[in-house]
């Protein structure tokens, strides 16, 4: 029992985490490919044509997983931020910083696919429905986090300030979602939801789940790669970095 606890803290140091992450990354890319191919196959070839929306609806196989991931990544980011702040752990802060661009990308993808879907469906490039609007605000929260961290020169201060912002954001997100939902139902008669198809065939659900898994694996692979880059940058004066094989050339 004791051994397991000690091992956990051992990987909390950038020095030991760096090679571990390096070993894990290829596996996550493989999983991304597997889930992605399966999900795309299901979504674009197997799932039936929608009675109302024709073929165009298939974009939900990108849109919905991207939305899920954008929200999920923010939670994970806030979790690492809280750990970094609470335990003064450098690696946790780096992990949060590594996740932010991927989360922002997911949010942007969700917004973009939402617009692409909206145009053939309702003739407008943008619809101010509750989900898209909340997604837009989430995108702003990501941008704010990234902007704050890049504006602060000192890495430690940037980590901690970003952590506070992420935690304030996490607390506010339910409130924002709730407010936007209220605002939307108030101002629109029938709320048109991009995901509320009258009947969601099993295959559609499976397709979205597989794509969500693919995006998740992708996010982990990319974030681990990014955190390794951050580790190298921050710790570049440490002895162990100068000993690395890949840097000696």
């Amino acid at each position, binding site marked *: 029992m004791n051994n397991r606890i000690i091992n956990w803290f051992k990987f909390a140091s950038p020095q030991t985490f760096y090679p571990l992450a390096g070993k894990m990354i290829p596996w996550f890319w493989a999983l991304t490919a597997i889930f992605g191919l399966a999900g795309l196959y299901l979504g674009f070839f197997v799932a039936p044509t929608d009675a109302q929306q024709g073929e165009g609806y298939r974009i939900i196989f990108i849109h919905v997983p991207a939305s899920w991931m954008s929200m999920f990544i923010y939670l994970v980011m806030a979790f690492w931020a809280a750990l970094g702040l609470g335990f003064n752990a450098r690696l946790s802060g780096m992990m949060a910083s590594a996740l932010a661009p991927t989360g922002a990308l997911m949010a942007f993808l969700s917004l973009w696919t939402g617009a692409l879907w909206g145009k053939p469906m309702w003739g407008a490039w943008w619809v101010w429905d509750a989900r898209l609007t909340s997604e837009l605000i989430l995108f702003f929260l990501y*941008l*704010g986090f990234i*902007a*704050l961290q890049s504006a602060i020169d000192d890495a*430690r201060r940037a980590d901690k300030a970003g952590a*506070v912002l992420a935690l304030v954001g996490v607390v*506010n997100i339910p409130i924002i979602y709730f407010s936007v939902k209220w605002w939307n139902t108030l101002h629109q008669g029938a709320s048109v939801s991009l995901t509320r198809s009258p009947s969601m065939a099993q295959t559609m659900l499976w397709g979205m789940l597989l794509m969500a898994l693919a995006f998740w694996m992708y996010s982990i692979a990319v974030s681990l790669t990014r955190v390794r880059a951050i580790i190298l940058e921050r710790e570049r004066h440490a002895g162990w970095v100068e000993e690395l094989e890949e840097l000696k050339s």
Partner: protein
Amino acid sequence: MGETSLLAALSAVIRRDLLLAMRRKSDVLTTLFFFVIVVSLFPLGIGPEMDMLRKIAPGVLWVAALLATMLSLNRLFAADHADGTLEQMALSAVPLGVLVTGKVVAHWLLSGLPLALLSPVLGLQFDLAAGSLGVMVIALLIGTPVLSLIGAIGAALTLGVRGGGVLVSLLVLPLYVPVLIFGAGAVEADLTGLGATAHLSLLAAFLALAAFFGPWATTVALRIALE
């Protein structure tokens, strides 16, 4: 730390900030002028049809109040940071949260309160019904303290950071959205006869939440900025 000295410190902070603002009135007045100017820009940009202006009045007034509050955020901590007073507050035997609360209260007295009191005049420019003007004032009176409380967190996070003014906007405006929705929504609800009580109660709930968590988050952010 005795309760009397905590209260003494709190009121001293408020009085000090008010005193400093009175001796340098331009800061406060520019916030108010900005509010007035921004509100006037909308008819110029959209057209003077009274029907439309009446409809957009609550939203316009609230957005202008948001922007005016945000502009005034940078003077919340910047001056004290520059002359070392903020450090002294962080080192005081009085909890920093108490002193921060005092500064936020003073900030509201100098920005949110005047905005709320000025809003009926601007509402008349948009032909807002007299009864709804009252709701507008109340909504602003409840909502603007929330703006100051949340804004303080942003101001503390960006203390001394380059590009601080614009950066604060990016950080804080998304967090202002709920207040905007329910603040403007309260006036609209009153206009359509539905009654603003639900909206105002929610705004009051936001105020309670912000008053409870805001100073604490701001204190954490300040200590990070002072390291």
